[in-house]
């Protein structure tokens, strides 16, 4: 069976997914426009060395830019976009397909999408540069490199998300995932140093050194073969091709292993048990909460954030990103405290599709007629049981690492609370109006076809809204720094709570009007 069958199947499923859902079409158009704009910008960036006719700059920009592309393919699906799993491998379990046919088909289907086309378009800028510098022959070599690079990107992203999804099902895997995420996030530190020193030093010697190292790794190798031709180092081309091909082969092998497990072992295989005993109400409601409707809703949310793999994945991602990124930034001379509003808002973005996590189970709340305000407050409370300690930890850690010293911690916490509150105010209404169904999949990173751009757009809209909303606080903290040191905490807390109250009120009213519509939106398979 040829891979084109898989591609046609995926495109057909995507198109059918649009039927009767104009909102999704709009989302995808937005995603397409955004992707085209991004690809165009990157194309120009990669073409600049060619326009400048500077082979030395090209030998730095191409491998580093390519490396960022590969890294983006590795990380963004985990953090932001999710993986389009319209072709669920488990659906092919009954068909007589060999493993290699399946992998080729799935790879081809993964290539048929906005991200892959955008990446290809962007990296064609490298082909332009190389062709300009070294002629058509070198350009063709770079074209081969760019295509291989795209294959590497897709294979890497599918293999890692697939393995990560499998790993998250077991407790040991969860711990490993946390460590892995920490390591990956820690990698952002060195990259930050690079970028900073690259900007600060005009001779760019360090950057060139790093670029030389990166071009011998799978990250930069596919994109560096063209400049090898230009610089008269044709001997490097076969070695780098070998590196890339070996990396792709290894990733595909890894992916096919995890894919097989996903096909035939979609259940966790182990029966989950809950620990505590006692009377039903005592089992459900956390000891600190009242034995009431609010307590029940909040406890259920809190338990779900831990028991459901999709929610847990987003919680772990946020925890690691929220704590590591600012610390790394501070440790490497960047502005750690400056990103705190971002961290606070990112915490709120975790709730952007809170009803989508529930799926059709949300019917229980609709049938019981839970008032909108109670629903919203309890959901925020349940999530905050995890998010607030993480935010507090981030604030304290940054206070200790960054220059301000322990005395600055209260004001940092103030900024965090303000950003979290504003973020919630923006996210809560979005979580009702923009809710979308998640597929019934064992992969916590899976999104249904066409929902990827929606997920990213909602997240970005929430971040942008939160940035605007926290601007007054940020301004105040900069303009009146000495006052902010002691007044920051109360002002931030009041500002955050105020914003939250306004946002939750709006969200509660919308919810009261739209409960059945929301239920229909989050019910999968409609």
């Amino acid at each position: 069976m040829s891979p084109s069958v898989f591609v046609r199947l995926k495109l057909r499923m995507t198109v059918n997914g649009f039927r009767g859902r104009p909102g999704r079409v709009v989302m995808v158009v937005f995603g397409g426009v955004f992707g085209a704009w991004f690809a165009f910008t990157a194309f120009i960036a990669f073409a600049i060395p060619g326009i400048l006719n500077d082979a030395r700059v090209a030998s730095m920009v191409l491998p580093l830019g390519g490396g960022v592309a590969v890294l983006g393919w590795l990380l963004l699906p985990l953090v932001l976009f999710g993986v389009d799993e319209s072709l669920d491998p488990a659906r092919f379990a009954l068909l007589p397909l060999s493993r290699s046919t399946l992998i080729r088909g799935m790879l081809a289907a993964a290539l048929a999408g906005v991200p892959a086309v955008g990446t290809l378009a962007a990296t064609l800028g490298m082909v332009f540069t190389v062709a300009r510098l070294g002629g058509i022959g070198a350009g063709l070599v770079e074209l081969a490199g760019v295509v291989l690079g795209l294959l590497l990107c897709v294979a890497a992203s599918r293999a890692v998300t697939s393995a990560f999804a499998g790993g998250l099902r077991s407790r040991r895997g969860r711990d490993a995932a946390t460590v892995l995420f920490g390591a990956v996030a820690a990698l952002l530190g060195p990259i930050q140093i690079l970028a900073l020193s690259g900007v600060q030093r005009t001779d760019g010697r360090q950057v060139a050194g790093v670029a030389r190292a990166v071009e011998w790794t799978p990250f930069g190798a596919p994109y560096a073969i063209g400049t090898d031709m230009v610089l008269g180092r044709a001997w490097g081309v076969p070695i780098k091709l070998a590196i890339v091909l070996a990396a792709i082969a290894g990733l595909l092998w890894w992916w096919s292993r995890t894919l097989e497990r996903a096909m035939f072992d979609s259940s966790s295989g182990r029966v989950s048990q809950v620990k505590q005993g006692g009377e039903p109400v005592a089992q459900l409601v956390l000891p600190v909460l009242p034995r009431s409707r609010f307590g029940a809703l909040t406890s259920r949310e809190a338990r779900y954030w831990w028991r459901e793999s999709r929610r847990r994945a987003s919680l772990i991602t946020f925890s690691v990103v929220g704590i590591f990124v600012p610390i790394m930034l501070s440790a490497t001379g960047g502005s750690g405290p400056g990103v705190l509003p971002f961290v606070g808002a990112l915490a709120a973005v975790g709730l952007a599709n809170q009803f989508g996590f529930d799926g059709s189970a949300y019917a229980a709340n609709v049938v019981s007629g839970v008032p909108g305000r109670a629903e919203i407050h309890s959901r925020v409370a349940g999530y905050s049981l995890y998010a607030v300690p993480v935010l507090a930890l981030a604030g304290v850690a940054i206070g200790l690492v960054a220059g301000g010293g322990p005395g600055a911690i209260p004001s940092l916490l103030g900024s965090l609370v303000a950003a979290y509150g504003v973020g919630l105010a923006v996210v809560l209404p979005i979580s009702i109006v923009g809710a979308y169904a998640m597929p019934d999949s064992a992969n916590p990173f899976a999104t249904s076809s066409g929902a990827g751009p929606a997920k990213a757009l909602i997240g970005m809209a929430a971040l942008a809204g939160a940035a605007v909303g926290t601007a007054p606080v940020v301004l105040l903290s900069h303009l009146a720094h000495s006052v902010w040191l002691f007044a920051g905490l109360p002002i931030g807390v009041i500002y955050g709570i105020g914003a939250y109250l306004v946002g939750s009120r709006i969200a509660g009213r919308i919810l009261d009007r739209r409960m059945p519509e929301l239920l229909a939106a989050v019910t999968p398979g409609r």
Partner: protein
Amino acid sequence: MALRGLVKRFDTKVAVAGLDLDVPAGSFYGLLGPNGAGKTTTLSMAVGLLRPDAGQAIVLGHDVWVNPVPAKRVIGVLPDGVRLFERLSGAELLAYHGLLRGMDPATVDQRARELLDVLELSSAGRTLVVDYSAGMKKKIGLACALLHGPRLLVLDEPFEAVDPVSAALIRDILRRYVTGGGTVVFSSHVMEVVERLCSHVAIMAQGAIRATGTLDAVRGGRSLEDVFLRVVGGRVATGTELTWL
């Protein structure tokens, strides 16, 4: 429960076309129909899960769509498929539903224990509902619907994928509930179950009620299956095709 002129369209397809149905208080009402007849859509609109394009759903004098809170208070629902918060244990799920309905925690504990014991779910102990078998899920779903003592029970396919022992138990519980003054409406496409249980039936096809009344009136001396096949129509035997079978 009274449904008046209910209409629901999905895109261009009309799922329910101006449906009227009266369910007398204290009746055991079976809603029969082939797959895709609009049974689930109708029941979803009747309990406030799906907003109708037109029409009214009135439960014990309360319009479900105008005045939902008092209406929802007296309804217990077992929705289609299994729409439960499955990552709770059976006991946790019951406690959740009870507290959600604003019940007193002590009453919730007592009733939940009783329901778990009667439905033989206590032995599942602390297993999450997601790991329950299909029959156990139906039973815990029924327990959630019964917990707050509703006056009207609306059950979508309560006997689907349930083993004979559990089915007998569910039948017994429902009979007792009706004897105690409750009203049951349930959908099914299994004739035997409906014939054994129901006082009233309605046969639905293509989004409309085709026959309705007491069981005996609808049957009119024939078997319910005969009446159903005649009312619904459709092919019931193979012709010259499929010779390769």
